């Protein structure tokens, strides 16, 4: 009797270990609404965009060809969550600085004040590697609209501190412009989990590794 209980327990243990492994090896979900057309599944993707970065260079979807990238929305004079989020983005830069298949894209939502030279100064002050991490500005409406594609929030609100209401989300986008993960960029522990998701997505695009 004791032996059979022991057998059951060891069997259960093996089962738990196996199921935990498969959980981690499962691909990240593809987020957003799906459409089914002619037997194909059409996933939500980020629309075409064109912005200007801290060096006056044009940044578009093509900048991120064959790369995965992390997105956030901020503004320089933001009196609330932005510095905390930027602190976490700097953690990503530190952790994935050598990873040439990962880029980062920070959109300023204060397009009136955050001019190209100010974005440049901001990047220098934060020691941002602008080869990997682009700070962009552009047409205000385009930035507010693209935020929706990333399931983030960015809007002008005179009642919000600093004049803008926005979320501190970090969003992970794959090589097919699909959103695969996000986290609360003000919460270091959620960002830890997000970094694991980045590793999983990198593994997905490099199956040989």
């Amino acid at each position, binding site marked *: 009797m004791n032996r059979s209980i022991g057998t059951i327990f060891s069997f259960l243990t093996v089962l738990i270990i196996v199921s935990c492994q498969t959980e981690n090896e499962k691909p990240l979900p593809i987020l957003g609404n799906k459409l089914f057309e002619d037997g194909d599944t059409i996933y939500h993707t980020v629309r075409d965009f064109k912005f200007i970065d801290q060096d006056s260079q044009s940044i578009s979807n093509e900048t991120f060809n064959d790369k995965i990238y992390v997105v956030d929305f901020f503004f*320089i004079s933001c*009196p609330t969550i932005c*510095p905390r989020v*930027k*602190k976490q983005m*700097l953690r990503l830069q530190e952790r994935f600085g050598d990873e040439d298949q990962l880029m980062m894209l920070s959109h300023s939502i204060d397009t009136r004040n955050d001019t190209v030279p100010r974005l440049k*100064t901001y990047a220098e*002050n*934060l020691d941002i590697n602008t080869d990997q991490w682009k700070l962009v500005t552009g047409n205000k409406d385009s930035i507010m609209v693209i935020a929706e594609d990333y399931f983030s929030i960015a809007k002008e609100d005179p009642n919000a501190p600093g004049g803008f209401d926005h979320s501190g989300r970090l969003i992970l986008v794959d090589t097919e412009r699909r959103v695969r993960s996000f986290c609360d960029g003000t919460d270091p522990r959620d960002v830890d989990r997000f970094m694991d998701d980045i590793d999983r997505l990198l593994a997905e695009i490099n199956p040989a590794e």
Partner: protein
Amino acid sequence: MKLYWNCMWFIVLLGCSPSFEQGKLLYESRCANCHMSDGSGLGMAIPPLSADKIVALDLEIACLIRTGVDANSLIPMPAQKDLTETEITNILNYLRSEFTDIKSFYKPTDVAETLIDCN
């Protein structure tokens, strides 16, 4: 005799570990978004609250809190005009207790005197 020792312990604990609860709450709500909960700041854009700096600036921090810092810098520090002398004292003492080894603390009268001369 036992009561005596209990009282003594109570007094010793009061003396050794002053409470900075209000200072902590104010720091978290007014300062930590930019200077971070651990005081590390943000690169060169937002200065860290290092022990050296807290010691060197001393009571001048009271003025910086009340009047703000350098409106022309990339990320200016907003003035906290609504904070009372006691509240500013509590923030200063929280900074000392949290980020330095200094065991002496400011009194609201020290801060009130300093604030008179702020620009």
